[in-house]
């Protein structure tokens, strides 16, 4: 049972990231509408998911490297400080960044955009507590993360998270493109920036008390 919840949380965060219009499904729908092509919507989801996954993978690799070098308490403190710092920055300054990718973008641009969005919003960092509790389950010694067993775990975590994320962006993009239409945005688009900041804050705290 102890190893079930972290996996569920990885999947849940995949759904949360996927639902956020700022993480890609809306971009896919917009490109489909511009190019009047259902195929474009579907194709666009692939680089969006890949960009997101690369961002997550990068964060997980860095986390494992630090986790394998630090003792558990130092690691928790370092990771929590980073996450809470990012949450505080989001709360104070918002989530605005330089805009680098526009509506004429190709697939590589979309992947780059998705990577930037996931990285700058701390999507990968949100997965750290779940990763940590999976790794702690078969821990030996003082280090936070045992290097040998953690790489396959990280790969599995990445697959679960990205798989759910892709499923969710596909479902939402399909629903909006085919049935709901964009008018729904006007009322249904709740403030994900604020939810995101709250989620990051909760992640940082969870890590401290874990």
């Amino acid at each position, binding site marked *: 049972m102890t190893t079930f919840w972290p996996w569920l949380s990885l999947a849940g965060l995949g759904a949360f990231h996927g639902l956020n219009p700022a993480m890609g499904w*809306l971009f896919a729908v917009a490109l489909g509408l511009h190019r009047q092509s259902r195929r474009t919507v579907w194709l666009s989801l692939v680089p969006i998911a890949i960009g997101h996954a690369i961002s997550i993978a990068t964060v997980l690799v860095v986390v494992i490297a630090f986790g394998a070098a630090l003792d558990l308490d130092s690691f928790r403190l370092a990771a929590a400080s980073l996450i809470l710092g990012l949450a505080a920055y989001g709360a104070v300054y*918002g989530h*605005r960044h330089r805009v680098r990718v526009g509506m*004429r973008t190709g697939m590589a641009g979309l992947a780059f955009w998705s990577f930037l969005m996931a990285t700058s919003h701390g999507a990968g960092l949100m997965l750290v507590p779940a990763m940590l509790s999976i790794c702690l389950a078969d821990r030996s010694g003082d280090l936070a993360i045992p290097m040998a067993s953690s790489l396959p775990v990280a790969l599995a975590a990445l697959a679960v998270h990205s798989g759910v994320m892709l499923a969710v962006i596909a479902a939402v993009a399909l629903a909006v493109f085919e049935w709901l239409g964009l008018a729904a*945005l006007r009322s249904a*688009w709740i403030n994900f*920036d604020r939810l995101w900041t709250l989620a990051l804050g909760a992640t940082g705290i969870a890590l401290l008390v874990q």
Partner: protein
Amino acid sequence: MATWRPDPSFYPSPRMAAKAPKETLAYVAAFDPERARPDAIAVVDVDPTSPSYSQIVAQVDMPNVGDELHHFGWNACSSCLCPNAPHPHVERRYLVVPGLRSSRLHIIDTKPDPRNPKIIRVIEPSEIAEKANYSRLHTIHCGPEGIYVNALADRDGNAPGGIFLLDHESFDVLGQWEMDRGPQKLAYDFWWHLGHDTLITSEWGTPDTFENGLVPEVLLGSKYGRRLHFWDLHKRKHLQEIDFGEEHQLVFELRPAHDPTKAYGFVGCVISLKDLSASIWTWYRDGDQWAVKKVIEIPAEPADPDLLPPVLKGFGAVAPLVTDIDLSMDDRFLYVSCWGTGDMIQYDVSDPFAPNETGRVRIGGIVSRATHPKAANGALNGGPQMVEISRDGKRVYFTNSLYGAIDPQFYPDGIDGWMVKLDVNEGGGIAFDENFFVDWPKGHRPHQVRLEGGDCSSDSYCYP
């Protein structure tokens, strides 16, 4: 403050925006040409069911004199819904009001009481000079990276003019927008095609060539602006320049199609040195380049030289002087202000290369001095100038003053301000609303109009 739901005045597409509720208020920039009393943003009641319809119901005075309020805009608009840079939980709440002469920026809060807005922040020219190196602030657009403000000159009043960014919540000056300006030097208007990642700028001149009025030698020497510049909106890089040629001077107001999938728009050229005519040009995508084509030419009207101001006497004709244009939300009707002759012309531009005149009214004018049913004094001066269209395209508002130093060159007796409204027929055709005439209080002249909740020259859209 951020909200939980998107601002209700944001619409994903121009089609949806055209179904927005009717505006009940208009905000109008008004300036004192004598620079003796503060300029103001006036609040005009445009709700026909209201007892104060067609009246100024409030006025926000600027803290200084001599700003020359000109154009202004909203802090946030429908472009906040764009998928590549979404932040739709800011409010369309603040009017960003620059002084063209003073280079001072005023932030006016239209909430909680839209009929009684208040200045909440003033950004002094020194801060803008220091952080962005610009002065003579002209046009405001809300867009993907915040508030874009363009300036006609650098901090010392020389070329190049350009664009700088302002944060749309904190109103901090973020710095120059351009990363590679190429050959661009002069500035006037700017706007973009969000669907084509392209920004477009037009040209006027440096402040020494307009702040004391138009200089005939500069005009006749074809030294005022006559070029369009096309930029990569996200790389902030100059891509292409199009020169309209020596004959054309003052290529001014830019109105791109609202539909983000369309790659064309309209720009007005104030005057031709050949025959004083004015013209409208369509820019469009031609292969991997932008191109322009003249699609409308409005001829000068012969007139008795005794009735003409000194600047036109020698020509024996009234120049139409197209100083503003505006495109309806459905990209169907283009409104063209002829400040010289006094005409407001409506063209059907469904085919952007073959416009068709569908309506025309005349009011004021250098020679015609045409009146309005509700005007107390029969002979009106000034002419149709800054024009704004309601989002549903059914109502058109305009005022009659151009620019403090240029007004007396064409209207030497002075300009008595007025604001009027047109009703638009479904299939084309325009007529004055006989109950709407704002006889502007003496001492101020009205300029740009902004409508509550947005209008046809404030919002841009990412979805078709």
